[in-house]
C-alpha cells in the first residue's frame, strides 16, 4: 500500500466516514440540547471546539440544566473522560517516536471514534512509521464534522420545535454497537463486554456517572483474568 503522508491522511479521512455518519446526528442533538439548557451560541460552539468530548458535553449540559455546581460538572467530566487515558496508553508505543508538536494535536483529538478508526491501522500497517498521518486524518475529519453538526444543531434547535425528541441520540448507540461487535471473537472479550453491559444497567442510577467507570473497569478485569485462566489451562 501507498504509505506517503498524504495518502495515509486521506485513508484516515475515509476510515473516519462511517463513524462520522453516526457522529453527525449526535452533534446535532447536542447543539439543540445545549441551547435548551440555556447556553448561548458561542458557549455551545466553545464546548464542541475547545473541549471536543461528546459524552462529557452531554453530561455537562444536563448538569448545567439541573443547576449543578461547577466543581461537580468538572468532576463528572474527569470521570466520563478517564477512558481516554486508556486509549492513550494503548497508543503509547506508536506515538513515542514523534516530536511534541505531533503529540499535542494527536492527544487533543483522542476520542472514542478516532481511537476506534485509527488503532486498527496501526495493527494492519505495522511496517509504516508514518501512521500518525492516518491518525491525524481521522481526527481532523471527525473534529470538523462534530463542529459542523453542532452548528446545524444550533440552527435547528432555534428553529424546529421538538427536534430534541426525534431520537437522534440513537446514532451514538448504533455507532458504538458497530464498533464493539467485531471484537466479540473470543470468550474473554465476550465475558468482559457482558460484565460491563450488566453492571452498567445495575449501576446506572449512581451519581456522577461513576457507574460507567465501575462497569468499564470490572469488564476489563473479567476479560483479562479469564484470558489468564485460559492461557494457564492450555499450557498445563
Amino acid at each position: 500500500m501507498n504509505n506517503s503522508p498524504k495518502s495515509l491522511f486521506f485513508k484516515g479521512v475515509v476510515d473516519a466516514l462511517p463513524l462520522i455518519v453516526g457522529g453527525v446526528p449526535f452533534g446535532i442533538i447536542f447543539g439543540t440540547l445545549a441551547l435548551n439548557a440555556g447556553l448561548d451560541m458561542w458557549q455551545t460552539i466553545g464546548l464542541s471546539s475547545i473541549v471536543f468530548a461528546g459524552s462529557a458535553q452531554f453530561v455537562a449540559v444536563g448538569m448545567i440544566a439541573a443547576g449543578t455546581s461547577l466543581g461537580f460538572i468538572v468532576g463528572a467530566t474527569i470521570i466520563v473522560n478517564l477512558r481516554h487515558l486508556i486509549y492513550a496508553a494503548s497508543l503509547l508505543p506508536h506515538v513515542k517516536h514523534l516530536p511534541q508538536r505531533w503529540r499535542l494535536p494527536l492527544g487533543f483529538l483522542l476520542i472514542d471514534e478516532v481511537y476506534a478508526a485509527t488503532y486498527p491501522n496501526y495493527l494492519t500497517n505495522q511496517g509504516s512509521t508514518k501512521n500518525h498521518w492516518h491518525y491525524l486524518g481521522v481526527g481532523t475529519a471527525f473534529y470538523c464534522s462534530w463542529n459542523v453538526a453542532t452548528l446545524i444543531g444550533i440552527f435547528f434547535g432555534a428553529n424546529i420545535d421538538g427536534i430534541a425528541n426525534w431520537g437522534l441520540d440513537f446514532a451514538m448507540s448504533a455507532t458504538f454497537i458497530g464498533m464493539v461487535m467485531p471484537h466479540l471473537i473470543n470468550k474473554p472479550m465476550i465475558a468482559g463486554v457482558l460484565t460491563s453491559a450488566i453492571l452498567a444497567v445495575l449501576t446506572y442510577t449512581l451519581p456522577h456517572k461513576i457507574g460507567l467507570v465501575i462497569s468499564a473497569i470490572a469488564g476489563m478485569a473479567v476479560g483479562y483474568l479469564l484470558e489468564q485462566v485460559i492461557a494457564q489451562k492450555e499450557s498445563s
Partner: protein
Amino acid sequence: MNINIWLLIGLMALVTFTIRYALFARANAVTLPAKLERALKYSAPCVLTAIWVPAVMMPQGELAITLNNPYLVGAAVAIAIALWKKNVLLTIVTSMLCFFLYKWLVL
C-alpha cells in the same frame, strides 16, 4: 444561570486535554507493565458497552425491556447486522433507518 459558563468550558477543556495528553507528553519515559497492556485491549469494547447498553435499555432512565422502546428494537437490529456483516457503516445506516421507521410508523 448561576455558574460562569466560560470558566466551566475552560476547566473542562483543561481536564479533558490533560487526560488525553498526559501519557503522550512523557511517552519516552513511560513504559507500561505487560499485564496492563494486555488488559487494555478490553478497554474500548467495555467502556463503549457501558455507555450504549444503558442508553438503549433505559432511554428514559428506567429499564424498558419492551417493544414500545424503539431504542431497544434499533439496537437489536444493529447487533444483528454488526455480527453478521462486520461493517460499521452498514450497521449505523440500517439500524438508524429501522429505528426511525419503527418510531414513526409502528409506535
